[in-house]
């Protein structure tokens, strides 16, 4: 038994269906194209690639490298470290949470896990703090990324 339908003619029903789905199937993608629905969030990957790609070319696959994350906000720090990981693959990024490191023994410092650390466009006062308080000495720069190593290596 078929479902009862107010439109009795099968041909007319097919026309109604086709007109409706046609309007939706053509119209909604058109709207999407015209409205240019904003994407979620900014393009962190492109931002990170532009800054870290020079350094990425010098790293070995699987090499551990610390990346300073210094915003202090856990979500932003996490996002910045993930962007760095994408850009620096196939090296493995160890995020160095600066606020934890400067608190002496902060559990998320992780500085002991790496020999080299990268800091993106660090202001000069930060470079001084990294050297005086964490023993990280600048050794070279690749594009806008400053590379530091632990003093005494």
């Amino acid at each position, binding site marked *: 038994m078929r479902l009862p339908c107010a439109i009795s003619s099968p041909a007319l029903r097919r026309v109604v269906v086709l007109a409706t789905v046609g309007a939706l199937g053509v119209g909604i*993608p058109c709207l*999407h194209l015209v409205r240019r629905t904003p994407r979620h969030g900014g393009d962190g990957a492109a931002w990170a690639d532009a800054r870290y790609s020079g350094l990425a070319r010098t790293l070995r696959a699987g090499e551990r490298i610390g990346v300073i994350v210094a915003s202090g906000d856990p979500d932003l720090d996490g996002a910045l470290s993930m962007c760095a990981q994408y850009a620096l*693959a196939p090296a*493995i990024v160890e995020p160095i949470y600066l606020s934890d490191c400067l608190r002496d023994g902060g559990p998320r410092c992780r500085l002991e896990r790496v020999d080299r650390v990268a800091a993106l466009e660090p202001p000069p006062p930060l470079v001084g703090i990294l050297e005086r308080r964490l023993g990280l000495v600048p050794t070279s720069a690749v594009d806008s990324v400053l590379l530091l190593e632990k003093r005494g290596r």
Partner: protein
Amino acid sequence: MSTLLLAFALLLPAAVAWGVVSRLDPEPARGPVALALRAGASCILGPAFGSLVTYGWLVGGGTLGRGYAVFDAVLLLAIVLALRLRRRATVAAPRRPTSRLDALALVLVALCLAILGAALIDAAARIPHGEWDAWAIWNSRARFLFRGGAEWRAGFADELRKTSHPGYPLLVPLAVARLWAFAGETTAAPMATAILFAVAPVLVLAGAVGRRSGAVAGASAALLLAATESWLYWGGAQYADVPLAALATTAVAFLVADAHAGGRTALALAGASLAFCAWTKEDGILLAGVFGAWAALRGPRAPGTTWTRYALGRIGALASGAALPAAARIHFQLFLSPGFAPDFTMGQTLGKTVERVLDPDRWRTIVTSLPPLFPGFAWGLPLVAIAAAALLGARPRHVLRSPVLVPALAVYAADLLVYAATPLPLDWHIGTSAERVLLHAWPALLFGLLTLVPAAPDAAPGAAEVADDRSGVAAN
């Protein structure tokens, strides 16, 4: 040059898939409807098959570069030639006259494909590395596979567990890395992969539903999928959810072909598609299990066949297609992945899980949060699909006989259970994933609804009209 190489790398495995599908499709027929199904299925199964070649190469000790590209090209061209030389002798179904309305339906689908493609290209170009999970997980993994050389396994280090989920399966990253081996590392590769997986299911629906229930029903399924805003959004985002849904669409197309034409070849193609689902995302295992179980137990049974022999035969056919992708998945799980779904399994006990599942507050949250996230909810597309099927003459009594509708609904029920059981914060988990997860079975649901429409008077022939190899009929 890079663009040409990219196009070549995309077309080559699709050509292999075309040859395999043409050989195994139990319902050969001419016309745009059959061509749409084969083109769509080939565009979906092609990258999937290519990912297996790449995985085998890497596991065998190779690295991804020009050497791999040459090997891949030679191997796939050889397979294409072999398939052409051993082409099965079949009789094409007689070309059916197309009514004006059917012709209009096909024109609408073509127009929709053009606009859909343009919308997806525009969306993908605005964020060339994809949305968050795309670059953090899928494309990051592809970078490890491509850039890592002999150390490509570094991408599965335990340190990456919290950020890029190295336990996720590899179809999408391998498909992208394979393209980079041909064309160099370019954002066009993941963009093209994403767009292909978003557009091809529209063709599959138009063809497979059209073959069963007429061009208007086929066009309805295709147009409703293209009208789904979340499909448009996530299709351009380079996530793995739309590829998973695309593979599920291919699977149901072959399950329906099996239900009508019998034989075992369509089941093998369905088995391959389902195993590729499991090779795409962990959610794919659920999908493969539900559809596979339904297919093993509910297909056509020849008179006089015992139930055991029938079930074993069907499981064997599914397994024959699933063998290679399942082997890759199992190998990955055993030797590379640091764990299976650690977000769900680490530190969890059965007692805690049952407690969450039985919590009525959680179900209240699920029941109120999920409907607005259902595909097409804003435009009422699920109701439009039901109404369209009803107006075209769908018969509700065939719901239980559909090889697609009941398992599609079962997948949705399982999704609700997963959310009820999740150890992650429920609101956060729903907010960040449900819109994508609900897409997985959406094309299958559309497929199931519109194939309830009875075949048009000039619909595809059944198995009896497919030529027997042994009778030596004229080649196609």
